[in-house]
């Protein structure tokens, strides 16, 4: 079973510079745990207090996981997962 995960520039320090890595898991939470086992530290950049970080976007097959159940989003072999930091900020 393999799910391709696209890694943004800012998190490639955890993947030895790789733009994409393979992982597996039946849910997004399981996939992130699997990534953590090979790329220690990455989980903390995606999850805060047991939930997805507000300013990290994760997509499964081009759909924002917030609309797919968040960490409970179901995954299957061949899915493509994309991680993108939000582009956000402002004077506030």
């Amino acid at each position, binding site marked *: 079973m393999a799910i391709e995960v696209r890694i*943004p*520039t*800012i998190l490639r320090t955890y993947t030895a510079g790789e733009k994409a890595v393979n992982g597996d898991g039946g849910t997004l939470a399981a996939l992130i745990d699997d990534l953590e086992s090979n790329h220690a530290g990455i989980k903390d950049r995606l999850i805060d207090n047991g939930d997805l970080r507000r*300013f990290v*976007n994760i*997509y499964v097959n*081009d759909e*924002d996981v*917030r609309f797919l159940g968040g960490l409970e989003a179901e995954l299957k072999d061949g899915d493509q997962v*994309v991680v*993108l*930091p*939000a*582009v*956000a*900020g*402002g*004077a*506030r």
Partner: protein
Amino acid sequence: MLTISRATYDAIVAHAKRDHPDEACGIVAGPEGSDRPERLIEMVNAAGSPTFYEFDSTDLLHLYKEMDARDEEPVVVYHSHTATEAYPSVTDVKLAGEPNAHYVLVSTREHGNADGPVEFRSFRIVDGEITEEEISVVAALSPVG
């Protein structure tokens, strides 16, 4: 140093003035590793706010997939401050997710939607550290190679 064409500079300023008093945002993409801000993409501020900006998550995915297909990266990430100086806020620093980009800040606080000069500054934001850099506005980017 940020080297940017006059046309791109003017387009960023025009976008900031048009969207005032809300914050305007966008990127200038260029070939990976080139440090050439070639292709301006105005983004919608999904927050629609005078004190916050955020790219819509669907727009963000489309933008990054398009850049990926073209072997581009975000060379400049710009946004405006509409009531405060053109300097990265605590929020800007906390959320800066492109360590290779030039973060351009424009302030429209003085003239708003009207003609008149704006503050236009450029920064690197890496690991929470802000470094201001010089800006060179050129008639056109020099030919590649």
